[in-house]
């Protein structure tokens, strides 16, 4: 694949995550995407061939390309999320390669948190299984805008359309019930290369895009009209030099929407008002800037603003609250319990907080909820109510992944305990409450 310099610098960036169970061919799919986009280079392949040979394997084991840690290679499994990079003439890709093992589901949450697209792999022979449902639920929970269902190993079911159609239908119905906005189903054979990069000659009944075509063309959301601007202040720039004696700029990355010079803004949580007098987009003075640009903003009035404050248009500022209701994914080995004192990190603000209630814990398999579990442990997903020491300008996660998300941190040792998503809905509203509380197997 030949790419010119001009093409390279004009391309956009797509972040996506892959999810799949242990033996459904995820490594092969990732390997093929990397290989066919020239991202596996000769020395890497040689290293994989040498290592495979040393283990007595005849063919190069592509999983060795992605399993970077000693422990992963020893056990032949992926333990931790890894990030891969590849490019085509149309786009640059950051792939969060996440483990399929049940006990590492928190790593899929990590990968999905920044992904704009998730590829969920299923084995055509097995169809939709428990783990597929978990992956779909995590994608829905994290509000990944696009989900691709890759029905793999079509070569092992004689490339039969009805097999694909049945799986696609079952998955689409399930994912749609979770509130996944867009689902694209693609029949593939990662091993034989069908519909990964090249269209398959074995499945002429399929008229859709290949996996790579879809990755290259899926629209990345830039719908600024729908999201009001949010600008968390990261750092105050005050040179106090002879050249800039009075300069006071508020530096940050625009979390959503667009900021314009002349716009009336409110600073939260204080509620003080001012007007944007200038926007510096890393060296260039501009009239408008948008998410996710890092900029520096100056205001007409000399307000007391510091790290942790949020600047928003006065007409659409979020309300502030000290009572946070959220869905959290527990990511630490130590549990989270009712009454526990924690730190809550939201945008650039970290505040003291206390866990008031854990109303329910969710089973991703069937979306049932178990009331009052008392605590959450590793890989649990549950509803929590948290009281914070200071007001937060929090949006609902459904409105903004950036200003609706937060971390719960153990103040004693700094461990990240849980990933939080503010708001009262977990994806779709069809959750059923089940009283029995045994058999938590997530």
């Amino acid at each position: 694949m030949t790419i010119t310099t001009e093409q390279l610098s004009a391309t956009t960036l797509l972040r996506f995550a892959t999810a799949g169970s242990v033996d459904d061919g995820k490594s092969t799919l990732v390997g093929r995407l990397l290989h066919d986009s020239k991202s596996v280079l000769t020395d890497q392949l040689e290293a994989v061939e040498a290592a495979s040979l040393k283990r007595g394997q005849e063919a190069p084991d592509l999983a060795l390309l992605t399993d970077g840690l000693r422990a992963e290679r020893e056990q032949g499994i992926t333990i931790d999320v890894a990030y891969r990079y590849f490019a085509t003439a149309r786009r640059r890709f950051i792939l969060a390669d996440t483990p399929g093992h049940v006990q590492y589901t928190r790593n899929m949450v990590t990968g999905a948190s920044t992904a704009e697209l998730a590829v969920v792999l299923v084995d055509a022979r097995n169809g939709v299984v428990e783990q597929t449902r978990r992956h779909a639920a995590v994608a829905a929970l994290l509000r990944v805008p696009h989900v691709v269902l890759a029905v793999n190993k079509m070569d092992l079911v004689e490339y039969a359309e009805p097999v694909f159609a049945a799986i696609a239908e079952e998955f689409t119905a399930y994912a749609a019930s979770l509130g996944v906005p867009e689902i694209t189903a693609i029949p593939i054979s990662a091993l034989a290369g069908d519909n990964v990069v090249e269209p398959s000659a074995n499945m002429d009944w399929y008229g859709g895009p290949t996996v790579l075509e879809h990755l290259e063309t899926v629209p990345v959301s830039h719908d600024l009209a729908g999201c009001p601007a949010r600008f968390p202040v990261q750092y105050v720039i005050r040179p106090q030099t002879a050249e800039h004696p009075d300069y006071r700029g508020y530096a940050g990355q625009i979390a959503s929407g667009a900021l314009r010079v002349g716009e009336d803004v409110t600073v939260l949580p204080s509620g003080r008002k001012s007007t944007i007098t200038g926007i510096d987009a890393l060296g260039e003075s501009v009239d408008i800037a948008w998410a996710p640009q890092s900029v520096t903003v100056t205001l007409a009035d000399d307000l007391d603003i510091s790290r942790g404050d949020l600047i928003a248009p006065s007409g659409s500022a979020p309300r502030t609250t000290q009572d946070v209701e959220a869905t959290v994914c527990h990511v630490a080995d130590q549990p989270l319990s009712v009454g526990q004192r924690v730190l809550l990190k939201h945008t650039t603000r970290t505040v003291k907080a206390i866990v008031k209630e854990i109303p329910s814990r969710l089973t991703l398999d069937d979306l049932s909820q178990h009331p009052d579990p008392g605590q959450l442990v590793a890989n649990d997903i549950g509803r929590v109510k948290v009281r914070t020491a200071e007001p937060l300008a929090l949006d609902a996660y459904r409105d903004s992944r950036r200003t609706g998300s937060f971390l719960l941190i153990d103040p004693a040792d700094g461990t990240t305990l849980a990933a939080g998503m503010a708001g009262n809905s977990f994806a779709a509203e069809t959750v059923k409450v089940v009283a029995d509380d045994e058999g938590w197997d997530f």
Partner: protein
Amino acid sequence: MTTTAATVGEGMDSPYALSHLDALESEAVHIFREVAGEFERPVILFSGGKDSIVMLHLALKAFAPAPVPFTLLHVDTGHNFPEVLEYRDRTVAEHGLRLHVASVQEYIDAGKLRERPDGTRNPLQTVPLTEAIQQHRFDAVFGGGRRDEEKARAKERVFSLRDEFSAWDPRRQRPELWQLYNGRHAPGEHVRVFPLSNWTELDVWQYIAREKIELPGIYYAHEREVFQRSGMWLTAGEWGGPKEHEQVETRLIRYRTVGDMSCTGAVDSDATTLDAVIAEIAASRLTERGATRADDKMSEAAMEDRKREGYF
């Protein structure tokens, strides 16, 4: 940085799309500012290599018009390229920065480190580095490491907590969610920060071209006296090469990475301009480290093992 739809490049599907370089730049600047906002004593590891040069450029942009609120630290192996040291000192002076130098040679002279039989000093950097971090009580240490460099680095977080021995434990890493970086650490611990995590070698070069950043001359093709060892072209010099059986020749070469002279290989190249370098890398079938680093070839997990001990 663009502000109008008219200047948005080909292939963008919205006037509000950011080019991949703008997106990477924005993310890196965000990381620099997070560290400035949350840590007491951050430091940038600065070697005069292209990744650390890009890091410094991003830091300058992140805090303009104020100065960069970090000091710099260089671990000098004693076998550095003179052109690079000259570049380092000139850059530090130009921006009014403060530079700490931790010297491997001083450790060897004092008997605290022993020269390896193979003469490579890259692994010897770990002790001076970690001792400098402890001595100056740095609590955040910026490194130019990229995840595309090596498979152990692909597992590295943007914020990587290190214990009082600077050790990296890949199994006990904090999950990194959204853009919420957790920099909490106990006294004596520090956090390694990698703002270029998501950049590739090509991204770095395209950014250097776009921002017109000056680099040390060894990154461009030039004639140099080199000799071959373990399949790599090494610069002849007082550090320990060539040996009797090794033949010195003058070749047209350039460097893809800058490190210790004893283990950083040159590549044959006639790329004397930025455009030519970018074209060469886009066509290369070898990774940057595979082409030029001897120390990564020591074992299948060489990088992971060194990182566990405190190396970047």
